C-alpha cells in the first residue's frame, strides 16, 4: 500500500474533468461510488468531485442490457434495401459482410465484420465480465481487466462504420427506377446499439476494478 498509494487512501480526489487533484472533503472515506454524500465542486472547473462515477454498476448494467436488447433486431432485421429493375434485395449486417467477401474484397469484409459484429460482442462480453468481477471485488487478472477496459473505450466508436456505409449509399444510389438504396429499421437499431454501448463503457468506472480486496500479487 505504501509504494502505490491510491487517492482515496490519502484523502485526495482527482477531478475527472480537468485532472486537478483536490484534498478531500471532510467526511466518509467510503468507496461505494454512490456519490450521495461526497459531492463537492472542483475549485478549478466547477464539476462535481466524486471518488467514483455515480451509480456506476447500475447505470452500466442498464445501458449494457438495453444495448444488448437493441442489438438483436439490429442483426435480425435488414439494415438496407437495394432495389434495381429486376430485383429487390434486403441486406442484413451479416449478408453485407458476405457480399463483400464474395465480391472479392475479403479484407474489407473482415473490417466490416470486426466493426459490426466483433466489436459490439466484445463490448458486451468485456463490460459484462468487468461488471461481474468488480462487483465481486475480485482480484483476478486486474491488469488484464484494466487493459480490456481501455481497449473497449478505444475501439468502441468504430462500430458506427456500417451506419455510415448505409447512410452514404442511401444518399448516393438514387437512379430512380434503375437503382435505389433505402435504409431499413435494422440500421436505426444498430446506431442506437452503438450509442448505448458507448454510454455503457463511459458509465463504468475502471477504478472499481482495483477497489476490491487487496490480493495483489
Amino acid at each position: 500500500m505504501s509504494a502505490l498509494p491510491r487517492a482515496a487512501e490519502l484523502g485526495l480526489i482527482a477531478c475527472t474533468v480537468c485532472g486537478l487533484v483536490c484534498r478531500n472533503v471532510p467526511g466518509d472515506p467510503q468507496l461505494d461510488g454512490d456519490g450521495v454524500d461526497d459531492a463537492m465542486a472542483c475549485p478549478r472547473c466547477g464539476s462535481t468531485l466524486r471518488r467514483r462515477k455515480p451509480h456506476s454498476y447500475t447505470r452500466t448494467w442498464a445501458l449494457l442490457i438495453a444495448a444488448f436488447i437493441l442489438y438483436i433486431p439490429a442483426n435480425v432485421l435488414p439494415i438496407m434495401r437495394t432495389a434495381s429493375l429486376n430485383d429487390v434485395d434486403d441486406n442484413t449486417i451479416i449478408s453485407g459482410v458476405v457480399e463483400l467477401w464474395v465480391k472479392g474484397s475479403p479484407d474489407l469484409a473482415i473490417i466490416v465484420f470486426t466493426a459490426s459484429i466483433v466489436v459490439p460482442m466484445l463490448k458486451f462480453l468485456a463490460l459484462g465480465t468487468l461488471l461481474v468481477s468488480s462487483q465481486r471485488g475480485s482480484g483476478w487478472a486486474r491488469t488484464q481487466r484494466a487493459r480490456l477496459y481501455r481497449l473497449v473505450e478505444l475501439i468502441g466508436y468504430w462500430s458506427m462504420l456500417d451506419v455510415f456505409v448505409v447512410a452514404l449509399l442511401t444518399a448516393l444510389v438514387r437512379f430512380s427506377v434503375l437503382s435505389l438504396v433505402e435504409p431499413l429499421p435494422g440500421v436505426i437499431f444498430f446506431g442506437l446499439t452503438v450509442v448505448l454501448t458507448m454510454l455503457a463503457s463511459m458509465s463504468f468506472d475502471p477504478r472499481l476494478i482495483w477497489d476490491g480486496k487487496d490480493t495483489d500479487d
Partner: protein
Amino acid sequence: MGTSSPETLLVCEHCDTVYRRRPLARGEVATCARCGAELERHHALSVNAMLALILTAMIVFVQANMWPIVTLGLSGQQSSTTLWGVILAMWREEAKVVSVLVAATLFFFPLMKMLLLGWLLWFGKAGRRAPGFVPLMVALHRLGPWTMSEVFVLGALVAIVKAHTYFDVTPDPGIYAYAALTLLITIFAGVDLRQLWDQVPERAA
C-alpha cells in the same frame, strides 16, 4: 510554456493511484505502474503549432463538407453527394435517428470541437484565458469520443467498394479532404488538452 509546477500531484484516472508529477523528456510517455494506463505525455506541440493545426483542420473541414464525396455513374446518369446530402437523405428516408447521429458525430461535434479549440488556443497564444474558458474547457472534455470523422472515411471506402460492383465510381475532392482531416485528427489525438489548464494560468481571466 509547458512546464507545470513540479509540486503538483497526478492521479491515474483508471485506478486512482497517486503520483508526484515529474518533468518528461521529449517524446516520453508516463504510464501508471499499477494499471498501465497513460498518465501524461510530453507535448512536442506548442500552443502556436496547435493553433496552426486547428486552423488548417477548419479549412479542410469546410472543404470536406462543401465538396461532393463520391460520384456514381449508371448508364449515363450521375449521382453524387456531400455530407449534408447524406444527412438529408437519411432524414427523408425515415431514418431520422440515423440522420441526427450522422449530423452530430460528423458535423456538429467536430465543428464545435474545432471552434472551441480555436477560441481557447487563440487566447492561450497570448498567455490569456479566453472568455468563458472554464465552461468551454468542460464542454471540450464532454465532447470526448463523440466525433467520428475517421470512422466515416473508412465507411466511405467500404461504400465505394460496395458500389463499385454496380456503378462507375469516381472519388471526389470531398473524400480527400476527409482523409486529410483524419490525418490532422490523428496528430491531435495524442494531445492531452488538459494541459491548457496548467499552461494558461488563472490570473488574466
